[in-house]
């Protein structure tokens, strides 16, 4: 995702000394920047950073007001732990499936003529901008006992039809995959378009077979993009609420649903906060991994160039 790429650093003189800082702060362009950046920074500090910080504080506060970790031990035991594990499992399933399907689709698009590629990308991108809630509702209609999918399967005399496709893990994964897939395809398509076709042709001209070319040349070239897309859809899935809540059964409750339930039904803010912080830590772990993959692949690229 372009979002995660570090911004290009403006070329400025190194400002290591206090004097350097003062000089920089007094520059006209610097003052202009500070003036314009202040509102958004203040806004996000009050409505984004501070609320998350207070969530953290609340999760460490006992009933008597003192410090405690028992909200975390609660969150990491019993049904709550089960829900965390279910969340991790469903997120993993979703990101792996979107990765495989997304890889095939993105690869196909790179092989199309530009006009067709543009058209297909439209079919991928437009759903991304349509409310996930609405798309989830579409799936509920499609996957019901008398929905289009089961009706079609029965008309084709598929043994065992109608299948139970809703209110189980299959339903949730179908729904979340359809929400995450546009991301994956966009990310992978961007990486694949950057692959130098000359390298593939070179491998082929030196006698490498299709499989060898694919596994030894193409896959290593797109691997960082694959890992990137996989981690990102995993992270986005972790805190996902709508689809699991509407398409899952009691056994597919995910962390976000549990947080919602604790706040809205049980008035249990501390417990909800602890779960939120755990979710946040998992997200940070994913982002860190993303960074790591990036620096490793860059190091590999530099080694290759040297």
């Amino acid at each position, binding site marked *: 995702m372009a*979002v*995660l790429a570090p*911004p290009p650093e403006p070329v*400025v003189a190194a400002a290591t000394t206090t004097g350097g800082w003062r000089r920089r702060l007094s*520059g006209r362009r610097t003052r*202009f920047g500070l003036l*314009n*950046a202040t*509102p*958004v*920074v203040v*806004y*996000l500090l009050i*409505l*984004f950073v501070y*609320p998350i910080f*207070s969530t953290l504080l609340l999760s460490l506060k006992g009933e008597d007001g003192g410090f405690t970790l028992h909200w975390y031990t609660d969150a990491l035991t019993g049904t709550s732990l089960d829900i965390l594990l279910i969340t991790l499992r469903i997120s993993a399933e979703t990101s792996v499936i979107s990765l495989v*399907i997304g890889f095939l*689709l993105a690869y*196909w698009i790179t092989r199309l003529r530009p006009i067709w590629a543009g058209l297909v990308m439209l*079919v*991928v991108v*437009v*759903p991304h*901008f*349509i*409310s996930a*809630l*609405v*798309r*989830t*509702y*579409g799936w509920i*209609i499609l996957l*019901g006992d008398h929905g*289009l999918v089961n*009706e079609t399967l029965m008309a084709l005399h598929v043994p065992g039809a109608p299948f139970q496709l809703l209110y189980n893990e299959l339903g949730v994964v179908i729904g979340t995959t*359809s929400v995450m897939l546009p991301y994956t395809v966009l990310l992978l398509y961007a990486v694949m378009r950057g692959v130098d076709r000359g390298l593939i042709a070179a491998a082929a001209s030196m006698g490498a077979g*299709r*499989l060898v*070319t*694919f596994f030894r040349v*193409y896959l290593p070239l797109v691997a960082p993009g694959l890992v990137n897309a996989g981690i990102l859809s995993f*992270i986005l899935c*972790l*805190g996902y*609420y*709508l689809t699991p809540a*509407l398409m899952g059964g009691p056994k597919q409750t995910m*962390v*976000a649903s549990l947080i*919602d339930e604790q*706040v809205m039904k049980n008035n249990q*803010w501390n417990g*909800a*906060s602890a779960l*939120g912080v755990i*979710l*946040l830590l998992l*997200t940070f772990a994913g982002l860190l991994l993303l960074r790591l993959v990036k620096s490793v692949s860059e190091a590999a690229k530099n080694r290759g160039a040297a």
Partner: protein
Amino acid sequence: MIGLRDSVAGRVVLAVISLLVLVFLGMPIVLILVTSFGSDALGSFPPESWTMNWYQQLFADGSRWPAALALSATVAALTTVFSVALGMMAAIALVRSDLPMRSAVYGLVLAPLVIPQVVVALGLFLLFEPAAMLGSPIAIALGHTVLATPIAVMILMATLKGIDERLEDAAASMGAGRLTIARRITFPLAAPGVIAAAIFSFITSFDEFFISQFLSSVDTITLPVQVFNVLQFDVDPTVTAVAALLIAVALVALGLVSLLRRFGTGKQGGLLPVDVPAGGDTK
């Protein structure tokens, strides 16, 4: 396996799989658009007979939908104003100045895109609950602004980067004041980008569910929250028509943005040989 020098069989298999995936992506949307005109709005596809009944019922007396629609539109309009204003200033700071700690500011602005929304919603709930602001449309809009601002900033940064800074320098060298430059050069060139940022902010807020739900009260239920409640608790076939309306709003918005892009580039091309007497207008 996909051969890179595609064999015919490989190509056919790949095409079939890809087309199936496209159907997978598009089907829920097409289905809702079609069934919203069907006599049995919750079921059979294709519908046995057609009707506008569900759309009429949306606006019938006693319907809860008009209020939800009005609230969502209000909140989305407020969010648009907040996030475009904040986003424009942030984009200017990030693209057109020597900002100290630039990457930290950039990271902070984009962070709401990757932080789980449930955590953001929970935090906002903890912020607004003690202030007795739950159920206030302003509170919901302030929350949505957190999510919409990063999107606005990204669009506006791209817009500003696309504007040749030398045009502004040229105007300045001919004696145009800063306000004149902003009004006569920068703003007209940036207008398509600003409108695109506004449209995406609006849609982000209009479709947002989690923050709206956490900050809602009995009287302030946005459209997505109402849809969710209907899907979870009571069956109301008009929801299909609402879903179709939400799709229509998104499609119109996307259409507008792509029109703007075409229009915008054309205009930029026409403006490049600047024939505006920039010097004569320094008030």
